[in-house]
């Protein structure tokens, strides 16, 4: 009856789970913070002078200040209208790197 994952009751009309379709400004600020922290990690590895394939691929990723807000807060989705959905709908989005989306979407 209570808790995050409640079953939909046949008696009541609609859905009991609701998430907003977009991020609030606090959540967006946190997303930007996390992106900056990952940028700092990549920068620290680059500054160490070591060379490896993972670093070459990481340096291809856009930095937070180079990213479009659309790419920071939404991801490509083939099923949704507009072919985009909120990044908060991606599982573990706070601990995953997802910066690039298909071109044109």
């Amino acid at each position: 009856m209570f808790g995050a994952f409640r079953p939909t009751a046949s008696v009541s009309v609609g859905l009991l789970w609701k998430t907003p379709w977009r991020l609030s400004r606090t959540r967006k600020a946190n997303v930007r913070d996390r992106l900056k922290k990952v940028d700092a990690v990549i920068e620290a590895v680059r500054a160490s002078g070591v060379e490896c394939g993972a670093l070459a691929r990481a340096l291809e990723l856009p930095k937070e200040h180079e990213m479009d807000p659309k790419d920071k807060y939404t991801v490509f989705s083939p099923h949704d209208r507009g072919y985009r959905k909120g990044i908060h709908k991606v599982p573990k989005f706070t601990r995953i790197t997802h910066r690039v989306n298909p071109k044109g979407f």
Partner: protein
Amino acid sequence: MASLLVVPRRTPSALRAIVQPAATRSLSTPAPSPQASTSTSSDSPSEPNTHYRITLRRSAISLGERKKGTLVALGIHRRMQTVYHLHNPETAGKILALKELVEVENVPASAVRTKTEQKWERKAPRGFVVVRNSIPQRS
């Protein structure tokens, strides 16, 4: 009749140990000064940065066995644990595999601390250091 060895009872007033306020604990080398930035620490020309200082900030729960295995390979067992590793491509690759979870800083070799040394630096000082005792101590 054998004479009993009488040991005087020690009272707080009798233990007139001369104490001094203690500074922070330090093991062998002095602790690094708290002026380092998040990504790289300033290195004087004589002290090149040779190590990564890696701290786990976010856990790898439900991120899969690969990422958990990477943490095992780095020697990290819990959140907020700090480990030091030499600069090399293997460690760099491990860090980049965990770049969303980890905080990294480049430090010189003098700043490297073992687990015991980190624990010692974390401990709060007693607040005093016994300089000498007025009562002769039992050896």
